[in-house]
């Protein structure tokens, strides 16, 4: 596990429920282009996940 700040994660998730309540947030989110999911090559994780046997 590498340097992800828990405070930042908690801050982000605390803000999420609020987003739906503000008038500009929903249209802005809907307008965002779907785009490809980011490629995560930042934490030396395995792209393959646990063994199929697991």
């Amino acid at each position: 596990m590498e340097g992800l700040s828990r405070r930042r994660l908690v801050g982000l998730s605390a803000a999420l429920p609020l987003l739906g309540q503000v008038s500009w947030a929903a249209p802005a989110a809907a307008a965002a282009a779907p785009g490809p999911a980011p490629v995560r090559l930042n934490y030396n994780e395995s792209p393959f996940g646990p063994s199929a046997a697991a």
Partner: protein
Amino acid sequence: MHQGVAGCGRYPYPLQYQLIEVFARQQGVDEDQVQVFCGSKLALQNAVHAFTGPRSLVVPEPSYETPAQTAEARGAKVHSVPLNAQQAHDVEAMLAVDPKPGLIYLCNPNNPTGSVTPAADIERLLRKAPADSVVVVDEAYIHFSDVPSCIPLVKTHANLLVLRTFSKLYGMAGARVGLAVGQPPLLEALEKFDGYNVAAEPSLRGALASLEDASLVARRKQDNQQLRDATVARLSRAGWRCTASQANCFMVDVRRPAEAIVAALKEQQVLVGRVWPSWPTWIRVSVGDEAQMRRFEDAFFRVLV
């Protein structure tokens, strides 16, 4: 791992002992020379708590930052020793920087460079280090490499602690299982900070299944090597210098402030690792699957025209 969810009402100590037993048998060590931690990071932090404070920590630079961060948090002196020209640990310099350190940290292969340190150098360090200085060899990435493990050396070196993880080749970073291997007094010293904790049952079941999957290491090692070496070869042909990696990450010298390149790649939806202040023009790239490496390369060559 799914089966383990149903068992989550109980503390799964029997499974933890089973994991210790299987690992000890496979590695040819005694069961009391192995302990399980919720991530090898925790074992490493506990080692820093146990063995530094009044005495110092010696680390290579650049390397995995956790030991230095933990030592700094407890006010212990940290000596950072640059890797040598071969990007291996400079063991003579590490030995010379403090005649009586509390803990010497080695990472083989090293994060973030992926470079390796020859076994002979580690053995020399073990021979020359003071008997009461603990040497930690972090083998988080060993499965990807051709270097021999230091685990057999714990039998003859009372001050050696070897760390392993299920987070890297075994693909279980989110399940949090790591192992420490060493003689019982060293493991006891770590346990003082861990209170004989137990990992989660799904995680222990996943770890056991991984150890029992006979072809997993060889298969994933080969896939990782192919993907890494193909990308490194294409970057090198285009004139970009890369580290000689034997891990699931490598570094590229982008010959300009690397933070800006990390940000530019992020705009291309490609996330790469953080920048080490001592190597400010290098980015660290983890090895993904084939499609992910293609996307990395496309983005890299768009950003660095």
